[in-house]
């Protein structure tokens, strides 16, 4: 650390320091202004229609990028967002349906999911089978709205693969 020698030296250092600090503050403020404070994103909790509108099997909701499955009066929902780099996976119907036990609960596997961007493949329960996907497709929480009986999906709340919503 150099010592300040005299008044002229002090003023020089003060001026230089103030200049650098001002530039730094300007740069910091400019960068900070680019970080959004308010999110205008779509809400994560969405009403997705009355359960009766859902056919047995699979329905794709493009706006939520979500697959909703119905098996009698039980429902579950699997994300259509590939866990590798975020493309929308496509569902392909299997030629033969099999029932497997996933995390202790029986599940009817009617489809498999394939990603068009880098070739990840997922089984009917969302498990990553092949390709670059690092983890299974997310399962989301479903509930029934108390006011009008519509299904509600919570896209911020991931659930286990044994999750089922039973509608009375």
């Amino acid at each position, binding site marked *: 650390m150099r010592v300040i020698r005299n008044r002229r030296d002090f003023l020089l250092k003060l001026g230089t320091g103030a200049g650098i600090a001002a530039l730094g503050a300007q740069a910091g403020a400019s960068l900070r202004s680019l970080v959004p404070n308010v999110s*205008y994103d779509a809400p994560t909790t969405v009403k997705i229609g009355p359960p009766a509108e859902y056919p047995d099997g699979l329905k794709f909701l493009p706006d939520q990028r979500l697959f909703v499955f119905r098996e009698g009066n039980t429902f579950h929902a699997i994300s259509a967002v590939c866990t590798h780099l975020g493309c929308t996976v496509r569902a392909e119907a299997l030629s033969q349906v099999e029932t497997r036990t996933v995390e202790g609960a029986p599940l009817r596997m009617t489809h498999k999911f394939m*990603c068009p*961007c880098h*070739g990840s493949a997922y089984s009917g329960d969302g498990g990553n089978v092949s390709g*670059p*996907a690092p983890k299974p497709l997310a399962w989301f929480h479903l509930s029934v709205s108390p006011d009008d009986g519509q299904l509600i999906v919570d896209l911020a709340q991931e659930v286990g693969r044994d999750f089922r919503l039973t509608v009375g």
Partner: protein
Amino acid sequence: MSDLTSRAGAAPRGPAAPAGPAAPAAAASAPGVHPRPLWSLRPESDRASGDAVVSNFLLHWFPAKALKASLDWNYSLWLGTISAALLLLLTLSGMPLLFLYVPSVERAYQSIKDIEYVITFGSWIRSVHRLAAHLMVAVVALHLARVFLTGAYKNGAGRGQRREWNWVIGVAMLLLTLFLSFTGYLLPWDQLAYWAVTVGTNIASSIPFAGAKIRELLLGGRVIEQPTLIRFYVLHIVALPGLLGVLFVYHMWRIRKDGGLARADREALLRERAEVAPARTKTYTLLGIARGTAPTIRASSVEAADVTVNAVPDLTRRAAIVNLGTIALLSILAVFIRSPLEEPANALVTPNPAKAPWYFLWLQEIVTDTTLHIGSFTINGALIGGVILPGLLVTLLTVWPWLDRSPAGAAGVWFGRDRRTQNLVFVLLALGVIALTLVGTFCRGPYWHFYWPWQAWPEIPGRI
């Protein structure tokens, strides 16, 4: 101050300054006064040739004399000049597009459609811009390969050379070129654009800890919307070209400071120093011009008359041929090659297969193949193939001049014997990238499955 200048200006004239109507002609022949407002393509004397460089703004970055060897078509292949010509063309063709394109998610696609189908010459201008961009990626990459294979980032005989730093600037300019292309093909806001942003920003978000924040900063939110488009637009038209322009100017300046191309040093190193006959000199002093005779010196060949030519017209002629040739070729190509426009951006449907432009396909191949499973632990291919591997490659390129321990004589020659191993490794890596690009271009079909080019793709419904 004014007192000093007036004295300095008045003193040297003395009796030599004639008065009356003969003054303009006499002043024209005075030292340091350049009579022609425009320089000649065919200068009559060495004096006229040198004057052209001194008096013309556009030529000031040229030396007065150029080494014949440096002007060889088959040494540098003039790839740097072609890149510069393409940059000029991109700037020029970008201007009308700036007036015609609207950076809004509702109107961007329609404005590109207008440029393509409604505006007179619009489709041609857009095609020039797009083809020049594609070509620039290729030519800048080839320029880098040329500099590597000739060891031209190495310092030679001159003092104060910093060629390694010019190489670093060059690597940065290649990355800027790629980023400019990326931000450019996002602007039409078609399917290619939307899914490229999706994949590109998800690669950024795979960076540990800071990833999510970086993606949010790039997108201006958590989803791809208007803030995203305006960010990439500003990057494309202001931030990146500005930075590229600054680096370009510095790149040129450094070439002059480093004594020209690496080949000049090679000539200087290999050749005997020759005696140069005493020449008349003049020195500018405060009081006027002192004339005298230079002492006999032993100069390197770079100044020798038999290996150099005047920059005007020999260097300018070739620079003009390369620049005008590039512009002419692109103008003609753009008539015949139309620019594609995919369907409007649709967040609901990912195209199948969703392919990046050719220069990113090798990366798309790598992110596909590099997800690692170690026991129950998984590392996303996005991090390995999208961040770590390209990062390593760029780092290696950047620091290579400091790792290259070959002698100075290995610079400025194609495939120098002392650099055989590193050239071989470079060529093999380049071939690997080219091979992956070819696989991505010709051998990937729906769901990124492998198909030979002659195999038919299965019918897959467009939507579910």
